[in-house]
Each structure stands twice: as structure tokens, then as C-alpha cells.
């Protein structure tokens, strides 16, 4: 775990102690702040929220959104659901995987991008759709992906 994380996590725990059903909001707060939920933090989280470590483990593991390892600097989510399939997302998936040299849940070698599958972004009217960090993109094609990744490489 990176230095400083301990303190940050302790702060978040303090802020969520006593909140009804506060574990998910706490996990979100931790992941928003440092990008993932370090396993080393489970005991502190469990203690702060009055749960067992196993329970924290179970919850983090249940939800696709939560990550237990540091992601790349950016997150690219490619929609795999039906509407995007109808507009050719599987070709797009292959292309993105090849360009980044990773499969889903993998991070590119330069640590710039973590690739994740997603099942609908609510942008089905503009399929295929992807989400880059918190930015949704619609009617995405290979050129859109190239543009996106080239800007990253240039930066």
C-alpha cells in the first residue's frame, strides 16, 4: 500500500462510521480517492464499520465496480451489452484489446489504461458506447479509439 493511503483511508472510515448501510459509500469513497481498495485496509475498515474482515472481503468481491489493485492512470470501459452488439461492439472490443495489448481487467504496459467490460452505459441510442474515466463517448469506432489513445501517448 502506498504511503499516505493509511491516513486517507482512516479519514474515510471516520467519516462513514455510524452511517446506516455505510459500507458501500465508504468503499466508494476509498476507491474514488486512491483508485482501488487495498486488501491491507480490510481490517481497519472492518473494525471501523463493526464488521468482520470476511464480511468486508465478501462485499468488495461481490461488486464488479470495486477493485483490489491499483488501476492504470485511466479507465476505459467498453460496453458489451446487446444494443452495442447490434452496432458492432465486438469488433471494437477486439480492436481495443489488441491496441492496448491486454484482455479485460488488464492494464496496458505503460500503465496508462485499464480496460474493463461494462454492461450498458445508458447510451444505447448512440451505440457502440464506451466510457473513458467519467466521459461517455457515443458512436465509437476505431478512429475514436485511436484518437483517444494517441492523445494519451502524446501527453
Amino acid at each position, binding site marked *: 500500500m502506498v504511503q499516505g493511503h493509511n491516513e486517507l483511508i482512516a479519514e474515510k472510515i471516520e467519516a462513514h462510521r455510524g452511517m*446506516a*448501510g*455505510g*459500507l*458501500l*459509500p465508504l*468503499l*466508494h469513497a476509498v476507491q474514488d480517492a486512491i483508485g482501488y481498495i487495498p486488501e491491507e485496509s480490510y481490517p481497519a475498515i472492518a473494525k471501523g*464499520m463493526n464488521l468482520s474482515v470476511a*464480511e468486508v472481503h*465478501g*462485499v468488495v468481491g*461481490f*461488486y*464488479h*465496480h*470495486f477493485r483490489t489493485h491499483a488501476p492504470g492512470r485511466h479507465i476505459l*470501459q467498453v460496453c458489451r*451489452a*446487446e*444494443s*452495442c*452488439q*447490434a*452496432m458492432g461492439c465486438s469488433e471494437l472490443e477486439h480492436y481495443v484489446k489488441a491496441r492496448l495489448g491486454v484482455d479485460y481487467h488488464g492494464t496496458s504496459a505503460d500503465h496508462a489504461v485499464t480496460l474493463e467490460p*461494462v*454492461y*450498458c*452505459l*445508458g*447510451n*444505447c*441510442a*448512440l*451505440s457502440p*458506447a464506451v*466510457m473513458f474515466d*467519467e*466521459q*461517455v*463517448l*457515443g*458512436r465509437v469506432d476505431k478512429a475514436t479509439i485511436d484518437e483517444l489513445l494517441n492523445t494519451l501517448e502524446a501527453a
Partner: protein
Amino acid sequence: MSVRVYVPCDSGALSMGAERVAKAIRAEAERRGLVIELVRNGSRGLYWLETLVEVGTADGRVAYGPVKVADVASLFDADFLHGGAHALHLGITDQLPWLKNQERLTFARVGITDPVSLDDYLAHDGYRGLRNALAMTPDAIVQQVTDSGLRGRGGAAFPTGIKWKTVAGCVADQKYIVCNADEGDSGTYSDRMIMEDDPYVLIEGMTIAAIAVGATQGYIYLRSEYPHALVSLNTAIERAQAAGYLGEHILGSAHTFHLEVRRAAGAYVCGEETSLLESLEGKRGLVRFKPPLPAIEGLFGKPTVVNNVISLATVPIVLDKGAEYYRDYGMGRSRGTLPIQLAGNIKQPGLVEKAFGVTLRELLYDYGGGSASGRPIRAVQVGGPLGAYLPESQFDTPLDYEKFSEIWAVLGHGGIVAFDDTVDMAKMARYAFEFCAVESCGKCTPCRIGSTRGVEVMDNIMQGKQVSKNIALVRDLSDTLLNGSLCALGGMTPYPVLSALNHFPEDFSKASAITSETALADPA
């Protein structure tokens, strides 16, 4: 007076570059020394025309689209600020047939107003339903909602008024209103549009629900894939609270209602109401056994109304215009309107709110304009990933809950995903099993194990291995899922699977045909 220019801030519009268009318009106006008032409205729902830019004129709002940054200078040259002619000129927005022929009740304000402006909301009939509700007894509010015929828009179509009545009848020290904003169904985005583009209508609906059943705390369980909705909801909640529409003594009355947004974490099953409640309690989203019903023992064991975004956002207009007004739309036992979402391979995708009774064909061709690819539409999936695939021969089915169940299909949350004739329906059946495997909460064996087995069997079918034996296996597995699942994730996965198999059997024997052909042509 400066001209008003509208550029949507809806995430769909943003996904097509609306932010850049807005900036370009501002910069170009400045460069030309023109004073404009730039309003960031919601989306009108004509997504193929995003970024749809509008200007306020004496005759009404005039639309231009789809506008790209490169078009901005020429729009100014054409004097678009006064509705001037341009290749992207579409005419008076309200007169566009696509919009004019809709019945926008729940979506009355969407795309018209600045989503987070409370003044805009009030100026467009906002909070009239709540004012009426405050003058009524809780029983009368519940009766009004029951009489409107409103049924849950989250998928199960349970009468909203009856659910409320159960909660209202419980005696408890605490009751909750929970809005199901998990909108996990692919091909659907009406919840997202309401939350991003008219968040106050949802807040108002929840407040009315709270008064009707005696709840003082509400939660909106929002899927984590909707960061824009999170911002607009939180902004609207803050402003509603500051203006006395939320919190203690709502509009000076004795009623209290606190509202909070909670983020989901990317599990489809958490859209199921009991799994959602587990998740809100901070646990894994395991589906609960019913009974007890959430209405009686819901969140933290207390009586809880769980309703979909659209169900709740429809309550204000019912309370404003009366049960009869709403009930007069629709057909059979499907009363009122349904916000339909056109998606997939469709030329003119977007949000069509229509009274029940409109047919799939009208939606796909009159509104949708046929496929985006120009090829024939071969199949449509209605009602999300657990909905059936319908072939062309069923396109005349009217949108009505009962008519759909007669053909072993569901309306669900009103999403329609079109596929052209390049679709491989065996692949879609395989995907349905795969989705079930990825999203299963794991509580029932058929769902947890059977779905993975289904993927393997479909792989064999697609490779032409013992096709008829494996098809029989798919039917067996589907039977087990239909009968041995605690919730509709396992229980309805057979809908897409079997409908694909029954309506498009040719796609399931393709591989064997190809394999035997190649075998003949190339005797190795």
C-alpha cells in the same frame, strides 16, 4: 434582449461532443460581439440529431442538428440566432413529427428546461402535484395513484397504488421510500434521462410517495455507471432542500422527508428489489426470499416502498392533472404512457413516450426509420437482457403488458433493441447465458451453474457438435432455470434463449451446415 441558445448537457449529447459545441458557440458569439444566453438543457431525446442546438425565436424554439464544432461558424453566418436557413436547420422543434406525435406526460419537461434550475421547473408546472398532495389526506393520495392505473415501470408492472397502500397500512416507527435507479437493462436509458434532464420530477414523486405512506427518509439507489446523473441529482436535492421542498416542514407543512443518493457498484442483480435493499444495507446483493415483502419488511426490516424511477417520476403529473387524465391514455389494463427507448441498429434512435397500444412496427419504422445499416430488421429484443427476441412476424404486437405475455414476451422497462439481418441469434442466446453467469448472485444452483453450462452447450452448438442433442440440452437447462430460480435473473434467462431458438432455429444449425459443406468440399 439577447438570444437564447440551447445546447444539451445530457450525457448522450455530451457523448457526441455537446460540450465542445457549447464552447465553440460561446467563443464564436464573443468573437462576433454578439450577446447570447447559453442554456444547458436536457436532451429532447432525438439522439441521432445530437448535438441538437436550439435557438429561441418569436415562433418558438428552432432546432439545428446534428451540430459539430466545425458547423458553428457557418451557423452564425446563416444567422441561426434568428432561425436562419442552414443545411442543419430542422424547423420548429415542437413541430417535428417525431416529437409532435408523442404523448409526453412523464417527459413533459425533458429537453425543454435547464435540468437543475428550480425556477425553470416551477415555471413549467413543477411541484403542482406536491401542492395538491399536501392538501389531501394520505389515503386520498394513494387512491389517486391507484385510480390512475399506474403500474411499476421497472419491469414487473405491479400496480403502484396497491404497493403504497400496503406500506401506508403498516404501523412502524420508520418507513422508507427507495427509488430503484439501477437501470441495468441494456437498451434502456429513460431513468438516466429523467435523472439527468429533469431530476426535480423524481424528487417530487418521491416526496409525494413519502407523504402518502408516512415515510421520512428516502434513498435513490443509483447505478455507478451514471456519474452525470449523480451530479444533477445531488445538485437538485440540495436546491430543493434550500427552497423548502425537502427536509423538515416541507412547504411549511408537518411533513418531513430527507433524501439521499446512494451509489450502486456495478452488479446487475442489485436492480432486483430485495438484492437492492441488501446492498443499501451495506451487504452483498444476495436476493432475499419473499415473503416477507419489502413493503412490510424492507430496508433495515422496515416497511419500504421500492419503485422504479419512471414510476415515481410519473406520480407528479397524476397528482397534478388527476387520475382520470392519466388513465385515459393506454389500452386494456396498461394505462397511461410508456417512455420507450429505441436502441441498437436503428436509424433514428431515441426516447418515444407514447400511450400503450402503439405497435412495435410503428416504433421501429415510423419513429425509428428502420435500421441504421439500411438492411432489414430481423429481430428485436424488448425489455432488456431478460426479454424475448421477437421476429418480424410479431412486429404488429401493440405495446401492452398482457398482449406481450400472450406471445411469451415482456415489455420490461420499455427498451427496444433492433438487430439487422447480420445478427447471429445463436450468438445472442449464448450471450444471454453468459450474462446470467457473470451477474448471478450465486444463491440458486441452476442460475449459478446452469448458466455456465449453457454457455458451453451453446459453444458446442455453434461449432456444429451434436446439434440436436445439444439443443435438447438447452431446452432442459431452460426448464430448470424457469422453475428453479429465486429471481427473474435466472428465471427469465430462458426468454432470450428460447425465443431465439424458437423464432430463429436456422441460426442454431448453421455451424453444422457449414461444417458438413466444408467437409464435402475439402475431403481431407
